[in-house]
């Protein structure tokens, strides 16, 4: 009896020290790749933020085009959105990074982009198409009486848009734009396909080379942390813009 217990205790202690050793090896690995992970986070964040900012500006222009009475502007915006919403982001990324240099070469000069600028451009162009539709819907949801009241006061279309209609759409735009940004943040994992070292690429490289699959867990936590921070920021923004309601 006593011997059995002794043996069990021994097995237990050996297991524990094994777990401890594994954990400490894991910690070592994590600590070692942590700087690389942080620079990956930097790439992930920069692609998402650039795509959001440029996407919003370009998306607003596209949305105004869609709402314009000018037939050409409307159709041009429509076709742009049709193409960039209707094809996979990965294809757009590959096109800009891999295909553009050879296509431009056949026009006489070579336009080749580094990985990061290529990612910036692809993600910005893509998010502009989505944001354009979000902004258009936001502008159209503003009561028609607002444009009529602006016109009755003598405002031009652009004055009414700038001072009355668009400022009112901000609050309504924040939740869907926040949603779009969260999607962007996660979709940036696609840049690993052009060998850009974002968070996903850093981790999966390490997993491949050292067979330490557990590293996916801290990566997931890092993504969750990022999305939590931005969810919080967008909630604050929404509150700020609803003071008048």
């Amino acid at each position, binding site marked *: 009896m006593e011997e059995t217990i002794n043996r069990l205790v021994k097995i237990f202690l050996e297991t524990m020290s094994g777990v401890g050793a594994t954990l400490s090896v894991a910690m070592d690995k994590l600590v070692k790749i942590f700087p690389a992970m942080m620079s990956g986070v930097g790439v992930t964040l920069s692609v998402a933020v650039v795509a959001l900012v440029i996407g919003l500006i370009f998306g607003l222009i596209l949305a105004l085009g869609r709402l314009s009475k000018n037939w050409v502007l409307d159709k041009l915006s429509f076709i742009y959105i049709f193409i960039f919403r209707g094809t996979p982001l990965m294809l757009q990324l590959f096109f800009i990074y891999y295909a553009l240099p050879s296509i431009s070469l056949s026009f006489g000069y070579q336009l080749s982009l580094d990985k990061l600028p290529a990612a910036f451009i692809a993600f910005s162009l893509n998010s502009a198409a989505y944001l354009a539709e979000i902004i258009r819907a936001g502008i159209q949801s503003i*009561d028609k*009486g*607002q444009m*009529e*009241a602006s*016109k*009755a*006061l*003598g*405002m*031009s279309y652009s*004055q009414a848009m700038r*001072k*009355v209609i668009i*400022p*009112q759409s901000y609050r309504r735009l924040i939740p869907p734009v926040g949603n779009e940004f969260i999607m962007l943040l996660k979709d940036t994992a696609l840049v690993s396909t052009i060998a850009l070292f974002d968070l996903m690429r850093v981790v999966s490289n390490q997993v491949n080379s050292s067979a330490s699959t557990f590293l996916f867990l801290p990566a997931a936590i890092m993504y969750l942390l990022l999305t939590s921070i931005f969810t919080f920021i967008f909630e604050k923004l929404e509150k700020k813009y609803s*003071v*008048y*309601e």
Partner: protein
Amino acid sequence: MKNIIHMENVCKSFGKLEVLKDINFSVNAGEVVCVIGPSGSGKTTLIRCLNHLERITSGKVFIDDELVDELIDGKDQLKVSPQKVSEICTRLGMVFQRFNLFPHMTVLQNVMSGPLIVKKTPKEEALAYAMELLAKVGLEDKKDEYPSRLSGGQQQRVAIARALAMKPEIMLFDEPTSALDPELVGEVLEVMKTLAKEGMTMIVVTHEMGFAKEVGSRVVFMDKGEIIEEGLPNDIFSAPKHERTQSFLNKIL
């Protein structure tokens, strides 16, 4: 007497629906014209055609004897530049049934919006005049509130102040009390009466027969897109000549 509004053979259709049929209508300075009639009679469309919220289908519209709209069978004949037209249209102030205040601006910002954005009036000047107007409609203490915090009656008084801030020659009221709770109608009508007494030229589309009788200098009865009858309020209300006017007044009085 100075003619401010003049409509000549104005027709307006929405698709196949004829809303205004060959309207001839004038308003002189100092008049308070009350337009009455059943719903769908074209009253609202009539005043919306004056400031280009709607383009007419045919006919001519003049403001201060200047042509601001001219069409023949839906074809635009207007040679005047859009800038000129909108400059002339700022001489018309408009108050809407559903107020249409700008919800993201405070009361004061609403009242200053026209002068600041359209006329580029200096801020101090716009502010001083806005405060004067808010005092006139009895809402100085609400200047920093957002419209959503105000009652319907208060919102409509702000809307009147906002329109007045552009120093219009004529005020157009599109059923200004129809969206209000009954107990709030009086405060808005009071403000309108004050304006009328001060000599403001007004066109009021309304269902408030008491107001038309008391304040109106002329009553226009419309039905099915036509002006059926017009005259002094007393004549229209006590001895309507036309059978359609009689049956309308019988129904509502």
